[in-house]
């Protein structure tokens, strides 16, 4: 009796080695540090973590962090799509300079970005002075956090959407027009389905970056407890107080909320793919 192989051999060579390396690398870089964090937080027990989770200062910081990150990600999607479209479809003087500027948050140290934004939006800064005249204060308020997060998140949307716009087949838009669609219908029925996956990925990336952002925010936020204090700063405060248990518990809570929100975004993508046929 001939032996039947238990699985069909893969046509790709080295599958076992690459899978093993991928899993080992992911474990070393992502999984083990996260497990260590959860294990350290677990020492406090459910009651201990629960007490920290309902602490008004922690709740306020979580509200500020996740609210600002979500709002910044939404603004980044709107303007990021527009900027990606403009840079890809139009030719105008200074286009290359603007294209290079988009990558600035990647190159600029976050602390430098925070200091320069705080300088700009401080009541005596270039923009801050003008805004102060109409009664708007940005630096050292929640609006400052939003400005910093918009700054750090925009490249994620632009750089995710740009290649998709470059690859869009203009003939589809022309076919849509010859079939009688107006510009809005072409945008909604032809362009949006193709751009939506990249936009939602860009939004998720900008949101994730915003949640974890520390360097640029602390210089412009004012860091007032219950008002403009972000969760990463609260973790640093706990560490400086040698309260390692409290710091890891807040980090674990933050991890759980981030994971839940990214799960919701992915579920929304899957839902719209099934129901609407795109994303």
């Amino acid at each position, binding site marked *: 009796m001939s032996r039947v192989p238990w699985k069909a051999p893969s046509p790709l060579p080295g599958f076992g080695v690459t899978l093993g390396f991928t899993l080992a690398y992911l474990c070393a870089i992502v999984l083990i540090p996260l497990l260590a964090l959860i294990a350290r937080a677990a020492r406090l027990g459910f009651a201990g973590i629960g007490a920290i989770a309902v602490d008004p200062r922690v709740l306020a910081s979580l509200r500020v962090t996740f609210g600002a990150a979500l709002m910044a990600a939404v603004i980044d999607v709107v*303007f990021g799509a*527009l*900027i990606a*479209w*403009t*840079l890809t479809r*139009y030719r*105008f003087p*200074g286009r290359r300079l*603007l294209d290079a*500027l*988009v990558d*600035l948050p990647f190159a*600029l140290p976050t602390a*430098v*970005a925070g200091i*320069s*934004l705080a*300088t*700009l939006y401080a009541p005596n800064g*270039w*923009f801050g002075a003008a805004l102060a005249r109409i009664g708007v204060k940005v630096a050292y308020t929640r609006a400052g956090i939003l*400005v910093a997060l*918009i*700054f750090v998140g*925009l490249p994620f949307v632009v750089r995710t959407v740009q290649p998709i716009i470059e690859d869009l087949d*203009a003939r589809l*838009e*022309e076919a*849509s*027009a*010859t079939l*009688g669609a107006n510009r809005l219908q*072409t945008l909604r029925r032809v362009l949006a389905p193709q751009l939506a996956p990249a936009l939602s990925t860009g939004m998720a990336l900008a949101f994730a970056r915003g949640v974890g952002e520390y360097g640029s925010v602390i210089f412009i936020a004012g860091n007032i407890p219950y008002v403009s204090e972000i969760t990463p700063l609260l973790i640093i405060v706990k560490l400086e107080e040698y309260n390692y248990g409290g710091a890891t518990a807040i980090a674990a809570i933050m991890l759980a909320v981030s994971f839940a929100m990214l799960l919701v975004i992915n579920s929304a993508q899957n839902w719209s793919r099934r129901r609407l046929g795109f994303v």
Partner: protein
Amino acid sequence: MSEAVASRRAISRVADEPRPAKAAAIALSVAFLALFFLAPLLVVVA
């Protein structure tokens, strides 16, 4: 008007985007990048 002419006009409607829309998109993008990206860079340089 023949179908061929109608198709050609529809295609040129897509290809020749209205100038106000194009100008508005460029102006908005430039303003946003200048406000959030160029100004912080200038502050660092200054």
